[in-house]
């Protein structure tokens, strides 16, 4: 509210006020204050463009896809497949056939475990995970390991919540898969994907990148990255709920057996058995998230119109500002987990206000209309490593600015004072 009075050089590149106009949810007030939404790492808000693209689709072109001959069904199928092509282009995939639509990133990882993992992992084998992982990239592997009896190794973390890669070569030696997050959803730490992928390749292991936190915030090129599997979710990148993405190299998908069975993934079915179709259809049993794919494509259009490079620069600048501001205002009473260097991290700040539990911090902040998320953020092994039961996580996106960081700092001071002995 006082942004015009303050230097905004840090983030002048994005016209945040104009962007915010596109996000109706951000226009609301709470207790007479502008809502400050700092929970995009859990799920982003979405611009009218996305919501209206879905409404327009439902109102003009909706039908089930892939099997209809009539024009409306043909339109629906075309738009659905165009959405797949949009996703493919956005992440630099070699072909749209490498893009599989799932219900969320979690299903995408379960798909890799249940299809590739089930046919390639057994007793004597090993895979490598990291202590930074979200439960989505842990539990599917633990479930499979319980069934198939392979070893799970863990890349440890440093005290400030980055990966400790000092022992990388030994850890990946003999492993069949290295599955890791591109950016921690707790510490914001950006992992050294190139280094891990190179080490995995040298060891003959495949790589899965859980890119949930990076695809929405950083330019992504899966081909350049050289990974084998990349997974992410629509709802964290301005898209709707109900859709996630698995990208995988075409040869891998072609060699993988189906994950879920049903309509749309077969060439033939008799009472004796079935013949699976080619990817990506093979992995999309049942009616897919049709309107959600249209919404996701609209979200990508929106992100591209702002520019992924610009979004990244904006977030780095905003994170730098917030780190400074919070340490000025709260000093020793606050620990911010994660790398101190803004360029090494995304706009995710995991806060520990000393003597105040994250739940209580979040409760007080809500009174100030500041929305953050307390908890383990589905990363309990990392919480244990950091020695905290929970953190209060504030996360930025393209619609946040220094006003929001100021509001966060102010509310945190109030929380500290409220709970002061």
């Amino acid at each position, binding site marked *: 509210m006082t942004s015009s009075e303050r230097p905004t050089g840090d983030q002048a590149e994005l016209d945040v006020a104009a962007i915010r106009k596109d996000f109706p949810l951000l226009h609301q007030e709470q207790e007479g204050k502008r809502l400050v939404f700092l929970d995009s790492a859990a799920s982003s808000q979405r611009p009218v463009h996305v919501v209206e693209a879905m409404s327009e689709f439902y109102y003009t072109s909706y039908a089930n896809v892939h099997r209809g001959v009539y024009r409306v069904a043909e339109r629906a199928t075309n738009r659905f497949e165009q959405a797949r092509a949009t996703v493919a282009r956005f992440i630099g995939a070699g072909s749209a056939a490498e893009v599989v639509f799932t219900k969320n990133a979690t299903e995408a990882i379960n798909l890799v475990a249940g299809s590739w993992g089930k046919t390639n992992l057994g007793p004597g084998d090993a895979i490598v995970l990291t202590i930074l992982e979200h439960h989505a990239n842990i539990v599917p592997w633990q479930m499979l390991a319980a069934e198939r009896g392979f070893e799970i190794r863990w890349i440890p973390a440093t005290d400030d919540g980055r990966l400790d890669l000092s022992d990388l070569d030994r850890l990946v030696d003999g492993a069949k898969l290295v599955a890791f997050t591109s950016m921690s959803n707790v510490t914001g730490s950006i992992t050294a994907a190139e280094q891990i992928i190179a080490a995995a390749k040298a060891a003959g292991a495949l790589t899965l990148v859980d890119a949930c936190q990076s695809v929405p915030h950083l330019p992504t090129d899966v081909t350049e990255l050289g990974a084998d599997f990349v997974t992410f979710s629509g709802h964290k990148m301005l898209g709707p709920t109900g859709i996630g993405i698995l990208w995988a190299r075409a040869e891998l998908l072609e060699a993988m057996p189906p994950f879920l069975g049903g309509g749309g993934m077969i060439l033939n079915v008799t009472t004796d058995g079935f013949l699976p179709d080619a990817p990506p259809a093979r992995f999309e049993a049942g009616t897919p998230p049709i309107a959600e794919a249209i919404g996701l494509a609209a979200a990508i259009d929106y992100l591209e119109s702002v520019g992924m490079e610009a979004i990244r620069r904006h977030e780095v600048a905003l994170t730098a500002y917030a780190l400074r501001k919070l340490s000025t205002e709260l000093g020793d009473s606050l620990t911010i987990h994660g790398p101190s260097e803004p360029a090494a991290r995304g706009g995710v700040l995991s806060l520990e206000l000393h003597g105040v*539990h*994250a*739940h*209580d911090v979040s*409760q007080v902040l809500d009174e100030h209309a500041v929305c953050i998320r*307390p908890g*383990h953020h589905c990363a*309990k092994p990392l919480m244990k490593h950091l020695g905290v039961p929970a953190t209060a996580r504030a996360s930025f996106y393209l619609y946040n600015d220094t006003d929001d960081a100021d509001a966060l700092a102010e509310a945190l001071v*109030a929380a500290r004072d409220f*709970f002061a002995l």
Partner: protein
Amino acid sequence: MSGLEDLYREIILDHYRNPRNRGELESPPAHRAEGFNPLCGDEIVLHVLLDDDGVIDDIKIGGQGCSISQSSASMMSAAVKGKTIEEARNLTATFKAMMSIHETEIGGDGSEAEADEPVTADLPLGDLEALRGVVKFPVRIKCATLSWNTLSQAFDELAAEATG
């Protein structure tokens, strides 16, 4: 911040800052039970020691949590110590009845059924009354009930051991 003062009554903050019956008991003879609030990561470790008449001889609370879950656990420990299992169960029912108004709305975990449990007693809650304000903050109800659910779990486990 009037809403907040409703939630964070002085007595709650006192129990949070000076938790009663904090610690562990040797197990066995004490029974150990662990509870999780999967939504936020809060954990509670209860140790309950019963005498031969089924009276709670001692109870200790471990684990980590927010002011609501910690103070509720602390007050609970003070309230049930010296009580029989049945008395403690009735107190639990009374407390959960106070908390149940909204629990079904945010549960999604079958807590609905709980709300239908017959409330077997309407006991005076004493200090615990201070937690009534939590009802206005539905997400926090699970914080307030965590230790109580864990206590019920401990009793169930003990009963299962006895019959099994």
